[in-house]
């Protein structure tokens, strides 16, 4: 089961990583998108921190909902509704379960419902799908996170703004997959899975 304290730590670490790597995320995004992914997530992370860091929560669902709604409202690009939908979907699932694999899987479903992306289309989903599989099998590792990220490099984008580039999108790591990798690295580091 997961606990509020470690979830807060998770989201805090994620915010630190996207803020520290803001320019790198912008760079990845400018290669195949509009170049604002790092800036958008940094703004969103600051708003989330302000919203949840001092708030008291007596259940997981309220916490996830606050994170999700803040991301939807404060992140200007497509990543706002996508990450927001992930956490809102986790908020719904948290009413039934406190199992990390089930919650992250619900997050993936939220992203796919919103963005309609499938595996192999060079999107954040290509990071989330293998992570969910690994969590279900009890084996999420840094290697799983990094290998999945690297695999997006050779993919041709068929969803999202990068799809306009067609074949020219090959050879670039997907920025949404990179920020998702930070999210899951943070999940490991925060000890969410140790509960």
């Amino acid at each position, binding site marked *: 089961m997961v606990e509020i304290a470690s979830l807060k730590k998770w989201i805090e670490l994620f915010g630190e990583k996207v803020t520290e790597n803001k320019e790198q995320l912008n760079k990845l995004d400018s290669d195949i998108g509009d170049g604002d992914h790092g800036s958008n997530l940094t703004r969103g992370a600051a708003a989330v921190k302000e919203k949840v860091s001092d708030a008291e929560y007596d259940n997981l669902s309220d916490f996830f909902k606050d994170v999700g709604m803040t991301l939807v409202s404060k992140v200007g690009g*497509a990543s706002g509704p996508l990450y927001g*939908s992930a956490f809102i979907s986790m908020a719904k699932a948290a009413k039934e379960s406190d199992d990390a694999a089930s919650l992250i899987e619900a997050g993936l479903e939220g992203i796919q419902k*919103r963005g309609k992306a499938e595996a192999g289309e060079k999107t954040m989903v290509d990071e989330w799908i293998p992570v969910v599989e690994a969590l279900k099998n009890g084996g999420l590792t840094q290697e799983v996170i990094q290998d999945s990220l690297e695999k997006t490099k050779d993919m041709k984008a068929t969803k999202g703004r990068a799809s306009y580039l067609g074949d020219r999108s090959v050879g670039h790591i997907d920025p949404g997959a990179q920020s998702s990798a930070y999210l899951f690295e943070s999940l490991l580091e925060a000890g969410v899975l140790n509960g």
Partner: protein
Amino acid sequence: MGKEIGMLVVSHVNNIANGLSTLLDQVAKDVTIVPVGGTGDGEVGTDYERIQEAMDAFEEDKVWAFYDLGSAKMNLEMAMESTDKEVRLFDTAFIESAYTAASLLQADVGEDAIVTQLDELKVKE
């Protein structure tokens, strides 16, 4: 409120949304046309809260929504999930289809006939 259906036009840029609204007003003076463009702080992007508020504020029960690019659609879909309005979202060429819809709504052409005509302008999924 002059017609049964109002129109919501959403762009990543405020000037684009406002400009399109100006264009539509010219052919559809009795149709409510509401532009929402850019983020709350005037940047390029789309803003869920502003879209939600605009959608809910229509006097009309039916709202037809038009948008420019992907994240506008995602934010519109989120707003649609929590509004009481009956919203129809068009994956059609932004300017051409909004112009067609506005002029046909103004002319009191039936809803089904307009939708059929707009289907031919579908360019997004």
